[in-house]
């Protein structure tokens, strides 16, 4: 499923904003309720520890694809 941003906002107003394009290819560390991105970068370990240093004991890590994903290539 893909849709334009305005359609997403209309159809799913209760969901958070989509991950911004600037994070493509990076690891993100979210806070525990996934409302805020605490740190980001290309190295998972450092992203995780930066988030912990910001006071989040259990950050949730997400690897953002660079574009549409078609398998583990």
């Amino acid at each position: 499923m893909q849709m334009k941003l305005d359609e997403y906002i209309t159809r799913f107003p209760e969901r958070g904003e989509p991950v911004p394009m600037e994070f493509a290819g990076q690891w993100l560390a979210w806070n525990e309720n996934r409302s805020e991105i605490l740190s980001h970068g290309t190295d998972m370990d450092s992203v995780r520890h930066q988030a912990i240093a910001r006071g989040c004991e259990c950050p949730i890590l997400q690897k953002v694809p660079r574009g549409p994903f078609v398998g583990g290539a």
Partner: protein
Amino acid sequence: MRFDYTAILSSSPDTGEPMVIFRPEVQIKVHGSKGSGDFLALVDTGADNTILPESIAHDLGITLIAGKGPAATAFGGQEITLSYADVKLELVHPDETLRWLARVYFAAGDADKETLILGHQGFLDYFTAIFMGEDCALDLQANAYLPRIADKSA
């Protein structure tokens, strides 16, 4: 257990326009000897195995065993060398947390291409999964084959 797909702003492959793409990702907690970590991982019905980046194993102190079988083959034919371990996984949901011991494969390689895949072995074999395209959400119900482990076990 219902999981909303994650939403990522990307570019349409045909027009290049900004588009929101949806991914059936769920939150899993991975346990190792040095602690645990929470990750969003893609539920992938096309993947035979559950495959995580080796960086996770290194960070969490998971001891890996070199695979003796053939390398995994990704879309496009790229071969991926895998090692493996039996790992305690948790599926995290506000209503319920499920824990089990899973054979998880770990992929070495380019950090830029790291991805987290929940495939059949270790994950989908233990669930009935309904992908609700219209709602952009995934429903997972554990089946009788889920090898549950007690809350406090290592």
